[in-house]
């Protein structure tokens, strides 16, 4: 009843000895996530909340069998951290860090482009979570665990807190979530709406999909094209930034209307044309999904 991560995922934390890394390691452990290793170069041999720390990702993978990495290292060193994880054969790399230079991500994605064995989530994202019980499951990232409930709706979003808003509504209505993915707000990133929707379509336990987009880029339009051709499950969408002025970067590096492209209106039109139920009111995402599921 999930995609990409579940109870059997073994997590390693890059940057585990830093303040963010250490804090969120506790949160992830408390939620029941299998955090098996941490990596901080030069601090191998230590432990953080009982999790052993290694000097290199390769060593951590060999010793613990970790298959997912979550990255909290500072932006300036993040490209290096992602490449190290990929080189060590980690299949899923979740990058939480905000503020990575665009050209760094261009080089990383160019390098990883031909490698089907590696999937990247983020950067600048809340992470990915598969809830399996009351306040428990596999939580990889910074989202508050308690708002999630196991259930039948897959969530993919470019925004953090707006995802929490949608998740909260789904939980309150008793629909719950299969897996929630925050893909992040940067212009160059790993998993996108289309890939996530494809995965949710293939997951038998996911009955409906919530897709939260925002201004900038063409991820939502690309997903609309895919849904139009292949989609079978109900999709409910919201696009943030219909009132955003052009040329202004709305917080996220990727949330900008440039050269008249990437407006909310265009995205909404493409999604509605693909049969996606779009709400203009972010308070009604959950309600609309309940109606869609009947």
């Amino acid at each position, binding site marked *: 009843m999930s995609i990409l991560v579940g109870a059997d995922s073994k997590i390693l934390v890059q940057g585990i000895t830093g303040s963010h890394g250490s804090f969120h390691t506790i949160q992830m452990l408390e939620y029941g996530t299998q955090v098996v290793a941490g990596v901080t170069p030069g601090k191998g041999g230590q432990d953080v909340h009982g999790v052993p720390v290694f000097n290199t990702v390769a060593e951590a993978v060999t010793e613990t069998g970790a298959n997912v990495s979550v990255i909290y290292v500072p932006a300036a060193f993040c490209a290096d951290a992602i490449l190290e994880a990929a080189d060590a054969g980690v299949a899923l790399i979740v990058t939480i860090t905000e503020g990575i230079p665009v050209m760094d991500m261009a080089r990383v994605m*160019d390098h990883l482009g031909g490698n089907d064995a590696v999937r990247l989530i983020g950067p600048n994202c809340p992470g990915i979570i598969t809830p399996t019980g009351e306040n428990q499951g596999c939580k990889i990232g910074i989202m508050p665990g308690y708002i999630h409930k196991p259930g039948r709706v897959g969530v993919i979003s470019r925004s953090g807190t707006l995802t929490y808003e949608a998740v909260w509504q789904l939980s309150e209505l008793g629909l719950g979530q299969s897996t929630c993915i925050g893909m992040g707000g940067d*212009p160059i990133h790993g998993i996108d709406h289309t890939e996530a929707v494809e995965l949710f379509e293939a997951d038998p336990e996911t009955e409906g999909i919530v897709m939260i987009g925002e201004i900038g880029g063409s991820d939502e339009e690309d997903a609309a094209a895919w849904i139009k051709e292949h989609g079978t499950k109900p999709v409910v969408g919201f696009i943030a930034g219909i009132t955003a002025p052009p040329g202004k970067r709305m*917080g996220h590096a990727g949330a900008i209307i440039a050269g*008249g492209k990437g407006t909310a209106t265009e995205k909404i039109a493409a999604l509605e044309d693909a049969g996606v139920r779009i709400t203009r*009111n972010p308070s009604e995402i959950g309600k609309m999904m309940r109606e869609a599921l009947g």
Partner: protein
Amino acid sequence: MKIHEYQAKEVLARFGVAVPEGRLALTAEEAAAAFAELGAPVCAIKAQIHAGGRGKGGGIKLAKTADEARNYTAAMLGMSLVTHQTGPEGKVVQRVWVEKGSAIARELYVAITVDRAQGKPVMMASQEGGMDIEEVAANTPEKIFKETIEPGLGMQGYQARKLAFHLGLTGKGFKAGVKFMIALARAFGELDCSLAEINPLVVTEDGDVVALDAKINFDDNALFRHRDIEELRDLTEEDEKETEAAKHELNYIALDGTIGCMVNGAGLAMASMDIIKLHGGEPANFLDVGGSVTKDGVVAAFKILLSDANVKAIMVDIFGGIAKCDVIAQGVVDAAQEVGLAVPLVVRLEGTNVDRGREILAESGIALKSASSLDEAAKLAVTVAGGGA
């Protein structure tokens, strides 16, 4: 981050990009001296502001004598230059660039930006120089030629030659054009630019290829490794409130409406603006306080919101994840007591430490309206701000 045209030209020249010779002038006398020093029959006097469309607004003049250079500069300095990019209030001219006039044979267009779909920089070239390139792209996209720059390799010679042929360059101009484009691509990559636009790129009557105008934007996330570039920042060109917000690690963008918004998270901040509009109100700003906001950050945010005279109501919308509701609540209370609350306040708290947050607000005794959902908060804010004004 944006910089001025003259700064862009100085930066690009370091990479071997050909630019006309010029001098910066902060006074009319300096402009006259610059004219004499450059020794050209004609010089362009160009107002330096962070906006395009300067020519139409009277920000670019051609001087044939030192006296003309002096007079044009005297008229420009201190004037509010209004262009289609500045908004109706315009931007005050504080410096001019005096540049040797170029004998223009042809005007072309070259730019580099990051193509998000490919995740790589792309160079675009067109023979339609001097035009609004967005219009060219919309009406005659076949007139724009593109080459993707591989991040690991940089721009290759064959790519520049391909574009140079498309631009119709020949002989001396062909060689100069190829050199120009490769140098521009190198500058873009090494300086972490987000945009490098040369419009127009001119071919002179002597066959030289030079940047008549130059616009460069930098990736803010990469400024940490370009301290020399960061020093080029001109704070007088940026919104005062936005600069103040940045000091407190707040993400603020001024808008025209009457409802001040304080939200955590960029997506939720945009959604809050959208829902205000949906209920007939107008947001006064975008404000994302971020995840690791402190009490002092919240106080600073409140001061910024209240410094906008158009604000008739404030809506606080927090979904605590990393941000904690009790911290936000204490900040709101402190701010209200410190700066006084002249306008109605609507608060919606949810998420981490929400119960403690609500207690703090209730115990403080400050006048506020609580909302239990984003929808309710927006409706309340619109009502107390005086309806759908």
